[in-house]
């Protein structure tokens, strides 16, 4: 009976156990199926995910190209910059470490507190920057004791270094954080935080060439981002070096010659367009952009009234003043409306439409021909010549000589200057051209604007006999042909007449630029200019009341080329508010020429 009961229960239990076991079996089948689905069917997909998980790509920055001058002097290099990093988890008690480190590094109690705070905020295996921009004493002091500080690492990164500080700073430019626009412009480059980009000068213009291609370091990382080992290294490709046409001796001389003045000097090879010197003053130190500014320093630099960050050589637009008379004279000769022997009388002013147009010399020059008019820079002569030519002929000639349009120099942000015309005036003022405006244009005043670079180009064009070369900051490689913008065919006779006049400006006792005569008897063709900043108040008698306010003083200009017979250098000088071209600008050109000929010999 009991056994029967037991046997019956056992039978029941067996059946019921089948239900439980069936459930379990189904569970195991589901698990097996799921395993099959994940591993066999979707294995590849998950394998990719696992790979993505474990590989982190770390960019290796490419060394930026170096910049040399035409004699292979290094103007911009990448110099090592040392910083001390610490990995807190390897270093032991941080406070103690910082105390020990402060015997070899300069840092304050305040900085230590800040560092300790930082250390608390980040993961302890990530490196913490203790100090950057170490001095050499600090580097050597730490380096020999590095084994005493576990977890401390001396790291070396390369930063841009301008060994001559402000020398040619406007040509070289400076680096800074890229703006949104620059990010778009260099869309092929993927910028990362801390990346710098050229903000001006050739650093900006040749950004893509200088930059190179960054390399990649493939690191295996774990779930919290700790690097485990290096998998693969794709080395970076350094940027290309630049060889500039700049002669740093000449550049330095020009910079020093300008001294404390505000202004610009451009010196150019008239047969190639290679720029030998390009100065804009005041200057700045591009290294400061790497080291970083204090707020006050930046304010001082960016709001300075003389705008040191602007390169006045290609961005400063000045009325060319009397230097423009070169254009007008050539235009007259070319049009056949000017006989060099013709004599014009200058009483000190010219009346046109019941308006008096004064000569700079209020007593007048008396009777002058072209040679004398150029030598003494007679305004009345050129009023009359301009009147005879008309604005259209002057405009044509100016454009032919590289004025009124960007020259295409290897710098960004070049300004075109301005050569006024009838159509321009209609567009700009919705007014027609007045004959009086032609007169003013004839002496390079009124609407006319040009950059120092354009004036140097103009002078180079006269020097080489009519070819406008694109000004370039890159040294021509052997066999490389210079780029021609316009090839004019000026009659040799016309050029000879002009040349005589320009020579007399410097070498004739009555000339306005005696101070530009170089040492060693080298003959120079030059032209002074004085461009009005503000309309001077005149009394009824015509007496000019010169302002004593420096900012209202005239700009002083001087353009020249030398030697006269076989020109090798063309120069333009602008001294803002310098007064007379002959006294303020010509001596600067003289120093540049002296240096140039002292270096290269007076004959080539």
């Amino acid at each position, binding site marked *: 009976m009991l056994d029967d009961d037991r046997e019956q229960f056992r039978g029941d239990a067996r059946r019921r*156990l089948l239900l439980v076991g069936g459930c379990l079996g189904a569970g195991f089948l589901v698990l097996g199926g799921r395993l099959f689905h*994940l*591993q066999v069917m979707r*294995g590849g997909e998950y394998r990719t995910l696992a790979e993505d*998980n474990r590989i982190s790509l770390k960019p290796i920055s490419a060394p930026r190209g170096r910049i040399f001058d035409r004699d292979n002097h290094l103007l911009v290099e990448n110099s090592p910059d040392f910083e001390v990093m610490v990995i807190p988890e390897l270093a032991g008690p941080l406070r103690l470490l910082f105390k020990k480190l402060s015997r070899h590094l300069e840092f304050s109690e305040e900085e230590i507190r800040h560092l300790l705070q930082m250390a608390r905020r980040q993961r302890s295996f990530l490196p913490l920057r203790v100090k950057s921009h170490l001095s050499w004493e600090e580097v050597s002091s730490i380096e020999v004791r590095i084994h005493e500080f576990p977890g401390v690492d001396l790291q070396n990164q390369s930063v841009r270094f301008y060994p001559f500080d402000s020398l040619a700073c406007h040509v070289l430019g400076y680096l800074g954080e890229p703006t949104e626009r620059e990010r778009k412009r260099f869309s092929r480059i993927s910028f990362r935080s801390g990346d710098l980009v050229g903000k001006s000068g050739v650093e900006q213009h040749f950004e893509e060439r200088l930059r190179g291609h960054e390399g990649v370091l493939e690191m*295996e990382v774990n779930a919290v981002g700790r690097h485990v080992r290096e998998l693969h290294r794709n080395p970076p490709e350094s940027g290309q070096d630049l060889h500039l046409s700049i002669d740093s001796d000449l550049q330095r001389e020009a910079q020093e010659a300008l001294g404390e003045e505000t202004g610009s000097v451009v010196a150019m090879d008239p047969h190639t367009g290679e720029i030998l010197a390009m100065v804009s003053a005041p200057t700045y130190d591009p290294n400061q952009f790497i080291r970083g500014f204090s707020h006050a320093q930046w304010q001082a630099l960016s709001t300075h009234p003389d705008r040191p960050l602007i390169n006045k050589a290609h961005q400063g637009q000045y009325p060319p003043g009397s230097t423009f008379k070169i254009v007008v004279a050539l235009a007259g000769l070319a049009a056949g409306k000017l006989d060099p022997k013709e004599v014009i009388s200058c009483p000190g002013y010219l009346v046109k439409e019941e308006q008096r147009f004064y000569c700079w010399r209020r007593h007048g020059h008396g009777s002058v021909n072209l040679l004398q008019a150029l030598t003494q820079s007679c305004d009345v002569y050129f009023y009359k010549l301009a009147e005879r030519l008309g604005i259209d002929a002057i405009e044509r000639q100016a454009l032919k000589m590289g004025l009124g349009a960007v020259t295409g120099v290897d710098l960004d942000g070049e300004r075109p200057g301005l050569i006024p015309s009838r159509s321009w005036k209609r567009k700009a003022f919705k007014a027609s051209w007045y004959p009086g405006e032609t007169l003013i244009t004839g002496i390079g005043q009124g609407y006319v604007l040009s950059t120092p670079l354009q004036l140097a180009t103009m002078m180079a064009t006269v020097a080489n006999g009519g070819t406008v070369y694109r000004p370039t900051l890159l040294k021509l490689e052997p066999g490389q042909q210079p780029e021609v913008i316009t090839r004019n065919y000026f009659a040799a006779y016309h050029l000879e007449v002009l040349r005589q006049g320009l020579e007399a400006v410097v070498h004739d006792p009555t000339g306005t630029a005696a101070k530009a005569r170089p040492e060693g008897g080298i003959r120079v063709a030059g032209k002074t200019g004085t461009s009005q900043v503000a309309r001077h108040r005149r009394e009824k008698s015509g007496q000019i009341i010169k302002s004593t306010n420096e900012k209202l003083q005239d700009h002083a200009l001087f353009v020249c080329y030398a030697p006269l017979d076989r020109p090798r250098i063309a120069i333009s000088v602008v001294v803002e508010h310098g007064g007379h071209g002959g006294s303020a600008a010509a001596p600067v050109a003289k120093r540049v020429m002296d240096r140039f000929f002292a270096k290269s010999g007076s004959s080539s």
Partner: protein
Amino acid sequence: MNESASGQPWMSLGGSAALGWQERLRRFPWSLLLLLMLIIGFGFGVLYSAVGGENNLWLFWRQVIQSGLGIGIMASVAMLASEKIYRRFAYLLYSGSLLLLAVTMIMGSVGMGARRWLEIGFFRLQTSELMKVALILALARYFHDHAKAGALGWRDLGVPFAMILLPMAFIIKQPDLGTAVLLGGVGLSIVVVAGISWRVLITLVIVVGASMPLAWNGLHTYQKQRIITLFSPERDPLGSGYHIIQSKIAVGSGGVTGKGFMAGSQSQLDFLPERHTDFIFSVLAEEWGFLGGVTLLVLYALLILRAFLIVEMANDRFGLLTVVGATMLFAIQVVVNVGMVLGLLPVVGVPLPLISYGGSSMVTLMIAMGLLAHVSLYSRQHGRSV
């Protein structure tokens, strides 16, 4: 019906006193032990990799020692006790465990945000582990004592249900949903095999199903979160979905043959959380692939089948139901743990039997295995065959 009535006939065949050492050794279910040791050995290989090889070798050696102790415990539970001793002390053990659960509730130490441990001197006792064994024995004893022909109705099941639900309530409060569900599953299996009527079983299923929404509201936020993330782990890939996503990546990337011993990138690079405990199956699947995963599942299945065979050897209801409970304790943990690792079930801290690192769960399981062996050891079948 009383104890002696059902126990009497075999006492003469050989009580504990009558069973000699040699006989006990001969009757010991060696094939069960062999399967256990295969799984444990398999686990050593996986654990060695999961703890990062040399780096945390002490964890590995601790597990080896714990496993050795576990086998010792199994043998002791199987062979040292006399036949009826577990039945005799079943209620006492259950009451004691329930009391300890209550004490833990009040003064247990908090670990990982839950109150699960009771500190006794240097010893940390996870009281819910004790309850697993106690519940199996107590339920087996109850159905043994209240044997009845035919299906069991509501009236017959009131006490057993109370016995199951009471500890579950304590453990849910800890909160430890995984262990509570495990207890419920084990308890229900015993009740089913003991003879629950189909009507009650179906009603029960319906009632539990209907009360789900209610239970949902009773869950802790983190428990709800786990269930939500189970179905869409991508909603919170760095938070609660992280475990599931990384575990699936580890398993899936293992492919058919796996990445090789110590070569799993997910496992070796710390992407897998809890990889030497609850998520150790991911390490296995990543490094040994589908073949390794299926091999382990087959080993488990064989072990469970072998355990169920002991049902045939049981002398009485107590023995039979103990075998069912002990086997289900093992089987449910396998299904829940692997299901969780494969992203089929919510993440409820249930370890993988015999393989996950951890002493408590190892001890409990080996006690259960010992009970299986004990039933087999004292089987009348041996007597017949001899």
